[in-house]
């Protein structure tokens, strides 16, 4: 029983961290229509930034500044933000597929840099030597996981409330106006490119926050954490949950991550012994079937965007 709870807490922590990332992407895609194909680069910048700033000194690469944890996390978010600013300036005038592939390229280049530049972040070995905050006080067992989960949950709720308010604000309406009809928006005297950039950076900072928490949770990050698979996973969560709807984004994160892990668990438990070795490939087939099936059955996602929000007129 305690085992089940312990696992569920662990699972919910990972899912919550991913949900924060999905919320960041939802601001970019769901609300602003920016096809960010390089999610993992900003997530990774947050993770690497946090661990490098908050970790103990390591031989041969940057790091070991041992910053107070919240500062390190903010530093990771700032790293993601700065990267988003540069990438945004270069690419945001591109549209759809072109923007997607350009940002995807940024993510591949980011992984490449982390893998090869040993002086920067340890190369393929990754960054370790990070002390999880308050570990001395809480140990590293079940109690710690509970405390960490609650922290992540509070951050998730905060990000959710922040985005809900943002989306309902005049700025939020502006984002959707640009998404739907950029020319009309600019004819009203708004500057679409600046607003798009702001949304892109804000979303990326949230992605960086998720990355920072992820790095903290594992006390380790390596180039293997920033492969394109993660971009795909986060996108799948948003699409299945419902783009444009923050609750859908969170729901999608839990659902997809749940399906992803549960299918592995179910196969290991119920598949016959002769088939065990093939379960890895079978799981990928299952994941593919779920995604395709979902898109055929309910393409707007499980919780579609609620368009009524922007029509809320009175504001005290």
């Amino acid at each position, binding site marked *: 029983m305690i085992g089940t709870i312990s696992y569920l807490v662990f699972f919910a922590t990972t899912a919550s961290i991913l949900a924060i990332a999905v919320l960041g992407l939802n601001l970019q895609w769901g609300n602003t229509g920016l*096809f960010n194909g390089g999610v993992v680069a900003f997530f990774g910048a947050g993770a690497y930034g946090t661990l490098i700033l908050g970790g103990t000194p390591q031989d041969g690469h940057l790091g070991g500044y041992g910053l107070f944890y919240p500062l390190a996390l903010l530093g990771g978010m700032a790293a993601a933000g700065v990267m988003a600013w540069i990438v945004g300036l*270069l*690419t945001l*005038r*591109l*549209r*759809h*597929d*072109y923007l*997607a*592939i*350009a940002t*995807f*390229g*940024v993510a*591949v*280049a980011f992984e*490449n*840099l982390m*893998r*090869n530049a040993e002086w920067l972040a340890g190369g393929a070995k990754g960054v370790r030597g990070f002390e999880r905050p308050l570990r001395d006080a809480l140990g590293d067992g079940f109690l710690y996981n509970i405390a960490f989960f609650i922290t992540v949950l509070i951050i998730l709720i905060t990000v959710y409330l922040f985005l809900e308010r943002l989306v309902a604000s005049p700025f939020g309406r502006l984002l959707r106006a640009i998404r739907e009809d950029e020319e009309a928006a600019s004819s009203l005297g708004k500057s679409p490119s600046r607003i798009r950039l702001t949304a892109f950076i804000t979303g990326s900072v949230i992605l960086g926050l998720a990355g920072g928490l992820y790095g903290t949770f594992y006390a380790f990050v390596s180039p293997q954490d920033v492969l394109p698979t993660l971009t*795909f996973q986060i*996108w*799948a969560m948003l*699409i299945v949950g419902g*783009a444009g709807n923050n609750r859908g984004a969170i729901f999608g994160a839990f659902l997809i991550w749940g399906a992803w892990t549960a299918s592995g668990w179910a196969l290991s438990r119920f598949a016959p012994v002769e088939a065990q070795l*093939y379960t890895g*490939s*079978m799981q*990928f*087939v299952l*994941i*593919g*079937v*779920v*995604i*395709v099936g979902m*898109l*055929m059955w309910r*393409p*707007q996602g499980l919780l579609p965007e609620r368009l009524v929000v922007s029509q809320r007129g009175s504001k005290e």
Partner: protein
Amino acid sequence: MIQNLIDGVLTGSYLSLGAIGLTLVMHILRFANFSHAELLSLGAYAALVFDALVTALAPVLATKLGPLSLTYALLFAILISMVLTGLSAVLIDRLVFKRVREKGWELSMVFASFGMALIIRNVIGLIFGLSPELYSKDIAFAMILSRDPLILVKPDQVFVLVAALALMFVLHLILSRTTFGYALRAVAENPSLAQVNGVNLARTVMAVWLIGGSLAAVAGVFYGLSHQVIPVMGRDLVLPIFAATIVGGIGSVYGAVLGGFIVGIAGNLALVVLPSGYTPSIPFMLILIVLMIRPHGLFGEARA
């Protein structure tokens, strides 16, 4: 340096073939098809099966064509594989993409294609195993074109290049000289207007898949001939093919051909300036540069 250039052109030949199909699909059906490269795998494995089958049925055909490692049997197998892969592409469209298209929006298609890619790749892995396969275990030695600077070219690669160029020329004739070519362009420009003018939309879409699928099959076999056939080859090739399509500009067949060669050459020249660890980034840096200058690729046009 010259060697890198030549290698780049040779790599570019199969990337181009893959990119042509992708650019047509992206143009007509307006979605980035991430499962396109899996059609290359499908084609390569289909040819592998039929190569073995034809060789078993008619051992005479196992003889090689001159200096090439290509056999008559494999040549047969390529033709069969082209048809099968083209039909598979149509079938996948009917079963999956068509339904998603009717209900969903642009991005649903992108993700459905991602899902399809996972399915196809792993089903191939389940059937054929995860290890690489080869059409011929013999190693075809390179011909020395020049000793100083050292320039080496493999006969297979020359064949691949010539065959790819020939296929591209045939496609050019089809697109520029036949009513089908006009219909295709009309649909790409404006699907509803084209239908009003008597173009059968469903038939055009089918033709696009057939062409894209069969060219992908050839590209897959050519890749396998130069390197190896492995279930993850689609995953490895999808990005260079996308890069070629984007650099060339979505919808432009000639852009795709040029894009394929540019990406091939860039990948091979990259090592001259950068440590080899960074090679995977090169196609993307190239895309960034091209898009900086031309936001819709070299031959692409802006479209709402």
